């Protein structure tokens, strides 16, 4: 029942177009990262010096470490908390649940810059230390709603009797959650974690308001360098590495998955 929405050859064309337009900047980034000159594009000079330059750039290395630390911590914490809150929200009556979800979605629809200002105001009010603590809290703040949004649909698909059945059979609430609910919503949790990680890695404007002194994550570092100096190509090299490594991991993961499926028969 191959149904035609616009016809299948058009679908293929549009898919190719999609990959082209989405990956064009990536290809450009990779090209720039292996081209020897930052100003002259007359002839191609292959070089890997920009990749070596990544290590020499202590600021960049520090910023990369910060970005990764915050991303991992924020993802872990928001996934655990988000799942917990999602379970709570799921157990509400429809009216309250809707109210809760409206509030939950405010960080999602709010423009970054406004969220940045708002968080700055409140953290300043509490005289918090700006830097790692505030940036981490901010990333948890905007990741939580996405985790909840990923987990809730899975909770809806869950048979609500299972939980009660587990309680009847003598499990504590905690055991029931961990052994009955969590396994069924695992896919939602993973999806939520992935979204949280992605948002954290790339965040710029919110992180900008959350930092002080020499503290930077990769995005704020790049943007601040943009302010008074040219961007050096080692940043492009770092980005190319991220992309290539990610694609590599994904292909690897996928083929491992396939072999597992084959093994299981």
């Amino acid at each position, binding site marked *: 029942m191959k149904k035609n929405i616009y016809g299948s050859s058009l679908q293929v064309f549009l898919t190719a177009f999609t990959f082209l337009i989405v990956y064009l900047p990536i290809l450009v980034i990779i090209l720039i990262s292996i081209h020897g000159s930052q100003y002259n594009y007359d002839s191609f000079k292959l070089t890997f010096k920009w990749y070596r330059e990544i290590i020499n750039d202590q600021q960049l290395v520090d910023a990369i470490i910060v970005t990764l630390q915050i991303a*991992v911590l924020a993802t872990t914490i928001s996934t655990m908390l988000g799942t917990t809150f999602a379970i709570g929200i799921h157990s509400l009556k429809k009216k309250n649940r809707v109210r809760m979800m409206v509030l939950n979605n405010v960080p999602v629809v709010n423009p970054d810059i406004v969220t940045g200002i708002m968080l700055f105001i409140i953290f300043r009010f509490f005289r918090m230390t700006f830097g790692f603590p505030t940036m981490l809290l901010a990333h948890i703040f905007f990741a939580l709603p996405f985790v909840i949004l990923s987990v809730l649909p899975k909770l809806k698909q869950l048979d609500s009797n299972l939980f009660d059945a587990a309680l009847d059979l003598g499990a504590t609430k905690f055991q029931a959650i961990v052994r009955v609910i969590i396994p069924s919503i695992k896919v939602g949790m993973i999806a939520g974690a992935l979204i949280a990680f992605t948002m954290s890695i790339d965040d710029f404007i919110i992180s900008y308001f959350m930092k002080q*002194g*020499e503290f930077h994550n990769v995005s704020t570092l790049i943007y601040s360098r943009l*302010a*008074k100096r*040219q961007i050096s190509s080692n940043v492009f090299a770092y980005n190319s590495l991220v992309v290539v490594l990610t694609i590599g991991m994904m292909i690897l993961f996928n083929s491992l998955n396939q072999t597992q499926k084959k093994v299981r028969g």
Partner: protein
Amino acid sequence: MRKSLIISVLAVFVLFSLSLVGCSSKEKLYVLNWGKYMNPDLIDKFETENNVKVVYEEVGSNEEMEIKLKQGITDYDIMIPSEYMIDKLSQEDLLLPINYSLLTNLEEVDFFEDAKVLYENEDFGQYLIPYFFGTVGIMYNTSNPNVKTALESDNGGFCTLFDVNNDFRVALYDSPRDTIGAALMCLGYSVNSNNDAELGEAEDLIEAALAKSLGSIRFGQDDLKGDVAKGNLDLALVYSGDYFEMVFEYEAEETDIEFDYFAPNHTNIWIDAFVIPNTSKNTDLAHKFINFFLDLDNAAENADWVGYTPVISEVYNVMVNDYGYDYDHYYPQPEGSSREVFMYLGSEHAQKLNTILNAVRIS
């Protein structure tokens, strides 16, 4: 088994990262400066000589510097803003007067005239020690010979940027003071004009230029110097230091230089200077920091790294003679040229400028 392995790895990672948020017990000096405006080796040297830690933060504009100071998150000891911002901050009582007796190197030093005038200014000279200065000018790509002709013609200079009759690819700095200043200078007015009629003329000039049909025009900041150098632009309003920065980078890469700098006869000169805000918790150390950069050897090493023209004439001589800085336009006070300094004329005036630069972009 796998789950517990993952959890323990994460736990170790968490503990590890929390431990990296450490602190040292040394005295700290908080410095706020522009990007790429101070030799990091010299900062390390200062740290070692005085056994302190310098927490060094960079911003991209005076307004950002002001915001960071007023946000109050960090108690800055040293800031290096431009003259009009120093004027403003001093009017708001946010700066501490410099204690000249603590600056032992000051006697050996002779500032250039333009910097000295600022330093001796009645109202706010007592709060600053000059650092670097430069002029606003036009960087242009030499592959189109018409550009140089146009710049040097009677109606040239800054007016070339706003001329709707040429087909050049032009770019203006996205900074109200600089672009509106260039427009005012083209019209023959003072860059500090607060006269609504004059400002209105400047606004019309910029608006007409943005609507021009030949060639193209746009705004930018950091990207302008690179684009002129590469040939993406014919000319752009820039700071003198931007031009030198590109010269040095092209020399380092050994790429051919096809761009030049046009210094109009009458232009705006900006001076960046050390100030000590009243948030400073360590004014003695702050003075030591300033004194460190008044040392002639340190200042020369710094000027070599930063590339802008030093304010100290002895250092300038060292740069030209010993470091090989025999460039055109490096000397900041050419004969016969006149230079005007920005003044701070109150927040209403600043808001007017900001509004003009927003209003001209209504499509």
